[in-house]
């Protein structure tokens, strides 16, 4: 219950932290509500995996807390890798551009073809390392939890609490996804990638934040 309440209390700021990486993906694809739900589920799964890893390590060794040099380096590497993926995604033509060309191209680049499916999970996973204030509290609680089970339960319930704020995003599935919106989504993904690349590089070299 503690994790859930913590998630509820800080969920809005989690949403604000996650939107720059999530929203371009929702625009860049042309999802129905069902596909939007799948993207959100992938995104939240990515976050759950990140929380699970960090909470486990935090509980086990007690040093990988947000703010430590190790987490800065890890976050920096993740941000930079994610920026690269996001940038490549932005460069890819939207599906509407030329379906035949897209299919042919995708057959030659299997990873690129699967990028739209991989990215929501990756975005969630990387977003899990965002140093937002409620997450810092959660890590503190996880490190001090009496057992690994408690620590993981805290992470899971925290995610559930924050997930409530993501439900309204399902409504983006109702938007009529015109080619223009898809192009805007892809271009936004490229601009967001620049931010993540910059932040990632700074975290790697000096632990400074934008």
């Amino acid at each position, binding site marked *: 219950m503690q994790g859930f309440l913590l998630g509820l209390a800080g969920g*809005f700021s989690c949403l*604000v*932290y996650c*939107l*720059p990486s999530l*929203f*371009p993906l929702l*625009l860049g694809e042309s999802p129905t509500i069902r596909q939007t739900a799948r993207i959100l589920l992938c995104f939240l799964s990515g976050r759950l995996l990140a929380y699970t890893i960090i909470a486990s390590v935090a509980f086990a060794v007690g040093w990988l807390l947000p703010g430590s040099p190790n987490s800065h380096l890890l976050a920096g590497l993740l941000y930079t890798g994610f920026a690269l993926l996001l940038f490549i995604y932005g460069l890819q033509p939207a599906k509407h551009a030329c379906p035949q060309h897209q299919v042919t191209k995708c057959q030659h680049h299997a990873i690129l073809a699967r990028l739209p499916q991989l990215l929501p999970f990756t975005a969630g996973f990387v977003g899990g390392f965002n140093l937002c204030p409620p997450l810092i509290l959660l890590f503190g609680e996880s490190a001090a939890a009496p057992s690994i089970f408690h620590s993981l339960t805290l992470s899971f319930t925290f995610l559930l609490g924050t997930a409530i704020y993501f439900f309204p995003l399902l409504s983006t599935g109702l938007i009529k996804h015109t080619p*223009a919106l898809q*192009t*805007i*989504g892809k*271009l*936004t993904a*490229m*601009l*967001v990638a620049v*931010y993540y690349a910059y932040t990632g590089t700074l975290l790697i070299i000096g632990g*400074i934040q*934008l």
Partner: protein
Amino acid sequence: MITQICPNNKPQTYAPMHKLQALCYSLPMFLITALLLLHNFPPAPTAQAALVITYIFANTLFFLMLSTGKTHRYRSLFFVIASACFVFSFITNLIEVRGSMELTAANMIDGDAPLCPLVIPMLIIPAAFTKTIIFPGSMFADFAGIAEMIVLWLGITIAIGRGWCSWVCFFGGMDEGFSKLCKKARLTIAAKWTYLPHAVLLTIVLFSALTLSPTYCMWLCPFKAVTEFPEVNSAASVLQAIIFVTLFIALVIVLPIMTGRRTQCGLFCPFASFQAFTNKFNIFTVAIDINRCVECNHCIKTCPTFSLSGESIKTGQPLLSCTKCGKCIDACPKQAISYHIKGTVFKVGSHAPRLLFLYPAYICGAVIGGGGIIDTLSKLFSLLLTGRLFY
């Protein structure tokens, strides 16, 4: 089909007016600009001379706009000069008041930064959710206070929609000026990039909500290079300065010269994207008579803000991003494009919609741009007569 013939036998959409008729139609402009520009008559003779020259200059251009039937030529002249004068006036003001173009941390704490309209899209979400204005300015300052600028922007937007960007914006004249140096376009821009302003807008809104800071001003605004910029005292601020200068050179100087278009306004400015949506509810628009149009695409190549496409011409409307600058109207060889008031019968070459649009658009432009011209001229006169730039 009626074709208007101008004195040099070149067909044009709006017939030149008789001088007396143009003078009569210009009278409201003479009176309103007199009321708005001259009401605060300055004591210094140099400022008085500057004011009178600006008044005559602005109204002469308006008169010529009516008497020749050409909109873009005279609007553009005023717009470019006003923009150049704004930069001069702004920089000299900063140097006079602060001693530098740098915006220090102390200035920010004091709320000493004048609000620029480009920030408005970034303010909305944080203001709605956190009840906080994320800008280091004062709400009711003497010069460009937040409330004052928002009210001005709102009023002008209701009146002319995205016409703001070609008639009022004190930055737009810069890339328009440089685009005039292009005799032949050496670079074409793919249609995909015309969506970039929307992507920039979305990105800065998301990041402004995330960081609770005006992201565009801090990292992306090319005009920081010629206005005020954060104090350069750290690695991050050096990077910021490099970004500002690079974007200014690329988007305001090089690309306009290479493409002949307003690339900052058409390909990057997030405010332009935001402002485009105001065209949805603004009554003034530019319309295309598809029966006259021969699809020569001359207007598409001419439009400075990439607001015309083959598809949009078929619908008889420019894209939402149209700034109503009048360039396509003046350029169309078949006189198929005209100003229009939504909900009325469209008639190419009808003077009424044009006049009704020109009055509010030019009044706003003349009063806002005129302030910069007056200040610049009076400072230059002061420099010439006394050897000092400031009073």
